[in-house]
């Protein structure tokens, strides 16, 4: 065999090897990607089934009346217990936090996208990223040491309250609402802003009459995302809300949420007891609510006009 022929044979072999290894790589890649997707789906289904099984035991094994469970405000770990105070607490914190965070979040989003783009990108954007990265427990600590005494001294009550929860959780969901809103406003085509300016609209008129209405479905999505996060928040809220079982009379009253009661009570229950099962049912409510939030987000964002 001549040298040239030999070379050619080697090249051929190399190419063939390359091609078959490319094929193998592709197959490996596919397997990895499909497996990952399958794991995520399986995990979601498993969590749902597991929580459903554990949470429904309360009603089917311990024979607790589901209506009583949802409406009663007594919570003593017996079969007479009901979760209404916590359901109320969770919803109250969620809505109040959204009420507090939505205007500020959307306002900041407008500021950083329409008013002061440079400043917004240089200062506000990093601030928001830092806010996202701060762990929940730090928000709780600041709440306990700053917000709670502030409320106690200036508004009244013990300080541990719905109001403290609303502020702490509101600040926590602020970056979520701001960044989703900012993305939504950035996605509004420049064309329709030009149209407004071309008709003699001022910057504020353009923001109020064109940009906000056009971005509205996405802004609603941003708020619901924030609310979903608020609903599931546990640690920080537990540190500032007081965890008193029963309905609060006012916004400065102590309260409790589904999450705070689960984290608080779980270590004190025995596995297989009614009390333990009741806590699983609270968890099931949280899961159902996160499904509800997802459905709301889906419905709202499908209304997008642009």
């Amino acid at each position, binding site marked *: 065999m001549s040298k040239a022929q030999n070379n050619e044979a080697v090249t051929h072999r190399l190419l063939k090897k390359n091609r078959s290894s490319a094929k193998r790589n592709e197959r490996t890649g596919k397997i990895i990607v499909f497996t990952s997707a399958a794991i995520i789906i399986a995990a979601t289904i498993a969590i749902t089934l597991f929580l459903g099984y554990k949470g429904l035991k309360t009603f089917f094994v311990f024979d607790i009346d589901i209506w009583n469970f949802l409406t009663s405000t007594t919570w003593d770990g017996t079969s007479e217990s009901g979760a209404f105070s916590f359901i109320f607490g969770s919803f109250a914190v969620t809505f109040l936090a959204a009420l507090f965070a939505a205007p500020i979040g959307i306002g900041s989003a407008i500021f950083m996208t329409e008013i002061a783009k440079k400043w917004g990108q240089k200062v506000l954007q990093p601030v928001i990223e830092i806010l996202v990265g701060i762990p929940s427990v730090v928000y709780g600590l600041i709440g306990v040491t700053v917000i709670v005494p502030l409320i106690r001294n200036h508004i009244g009550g013990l300080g541990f309250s719905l109001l403290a929860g609303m502020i702490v959780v509101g600040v926590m969901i602020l970056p979520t609402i701001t960044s989703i809103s900012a993305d939504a406003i950035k996605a509004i*085509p420049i*064309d*329709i802003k*030009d*149209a*407004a*300016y*071309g*008709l*003699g*609209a*001022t910057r504020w*008129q353009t923001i109020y*009459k*064109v940009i906000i*209405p*056009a971005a509205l479905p996405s802004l609603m999505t941003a708020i619901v995302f924030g609310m979903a996060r608020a609903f599931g928040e546990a640690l920080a809220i537990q540190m500032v809300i007081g965890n008193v079982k029963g309905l609060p009379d006012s916004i400065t009253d102590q309260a409790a949420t589904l999450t705070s009661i689960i984290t608080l009570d779980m270590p004190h229950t025995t596995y297989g007891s009614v009390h333990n099962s009741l806590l699983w049912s609270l968890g099931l409510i949280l899961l159902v609510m996160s499904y509800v939030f997802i459905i709301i987000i889906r419905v709202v964002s499908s209304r997008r*006009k*642009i």
Partner: protein
Amino acid sequence: MDKYSYEVENMNLWYGEHQALYEINMKIPKNKVTAIIGPSGCGKSTFLKGLNRMVEMVPGVKVAGKIKYNGEDILNPNYHPEELRTKVGMVFQHPNPFPKSIYENVAFGAKIQGIRNKSKLEGLVEKSLKRAAIWDEVKDRLNTSATGLSGGQQQRICIARAIANEPDVILMDEPTSALDPISTLRVEELIQQLKEHYTIIIVTHNMQQASRVSDKTAFFLNGELVEFDDTDRIFSNPGDKRTEDYISGRFG
């Protein structure tokens, strides 16, 4: 009354360091259609956006010279651009209706000027849509979204929206470049009808269009106004060699 809607004197314009317009002098007659032609990037849109001060939205823009609109210099710092833009309407290259109903689109300008009277608004919307020759097509669905219409219909809604401000000048930047031939023809017919009421300044890269719709034609090249004359003359007997080269398709 003046014969001219605009008298532009020694207009120079820079985007930052880059000069886009050089020493433009141009008197644009009232109630006529003036076409602006020239190769891409020669400054047609820039000039047009200078006439309603939309060009100021670009950061770092500097304009020098005088732009007199109905005898008043609009570059005067005391002149409100918003007020100017209610009298000088603009139609853009891509139809850009708001994602609102047809009615809300047309009533937009009046509403931001504080007109709330419902029957007044309804009358204005009807009149404007009629003038933009689209009333018959949309009168039964004024409350449906304008973004659902065809491109040509959207562009006529945008024209109606500009008309509803009761302007005296309408600026159009390649208003048919995104439209099909039939829609283009309809918009061209509309322009002919509109010049009775408005001064129209239209940028176009389509020379047939310029010769079909306009009374006067301005030829821009590299940020300079090369020639400005009656359209007939520009297309039959241009005064400048560069104009002749351009209209005979020798470049651009």
